């Protein structure tokens, strides 16, 4: 049973528009969440994180929103750029411990 779900395997967005990647989790004990980005033939790289004491964290074009009651988080990319085309992994867990990753969403930003 997957504790972290990313129900959209893929997403296509026009350059300049907003990309919204969704993630749901089942473990209410999770108190920290991460997003990683992965390009083909490379390892994942850290993108942004959020603690459960917050409902929003912003870093440049990237914003993560957390809705604890719904056990849902989303990553917003505004504006989307072709270089954002990658697989995005959501992960949940407890700070300082191991994290559980979702299956990933492949984002394609079309010029």
């Amino acid at each position: 049973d997957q504790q972290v779900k990313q129900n959209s395997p893929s997403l296509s967005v026009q350059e300049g528009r907003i990309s919204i990647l969704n993630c749901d989790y089942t473990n209410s004990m999770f108190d920290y969440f991460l997003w990683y980005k992965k390009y083909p033939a490379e390892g994942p790289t850290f993108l942004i994180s959020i603690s459960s004491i917050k409902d929003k964290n912003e870093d440049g074009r990237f914003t993560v929103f957390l809705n604890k009651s719904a056990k849902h988080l989303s990553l917003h990319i505004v504006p989307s750029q072709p270089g954002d085309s990658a697989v995005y992994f959501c992960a949940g867990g407890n700070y300082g411990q191991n994290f559980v990753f979702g299956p990933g969403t492949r984002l394609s930003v079309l010029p």
Partner: protein
Amino acid sequence: DVKVTQSSRYLVKRTGEKVFLECVQDMDHENMFWYRQDPGLGLRLIYFSYDVKMKEKGDIPEGYSVSREKKERFSLILESASTNQTSMYLCASSRRGRWDTEAFFGQGTRLTVV
């Protein structure tokens, strides 16, 4: 520039072979991890190590073992490779007590077992 280096990008092995996947990090990190990545399943933790000679099972340790004789090196061993171990294997490292911005991944090893 920080680095986690995996010894091979691509490997093809035969069923029943013993396979070694090597990972080296140059950041003096205490924690090291081995994941496998499969379509639709994301990254699943096989084993991790938080210190030299220490190891802990992750979510899917069956069929695998690990070795950490030196701080910078973490090896994943497939004792007798099987076709269901065909996958992308990713090594990562992080400082003790930290995971978020300080987790660095290698480029991955795509293993095919025939």
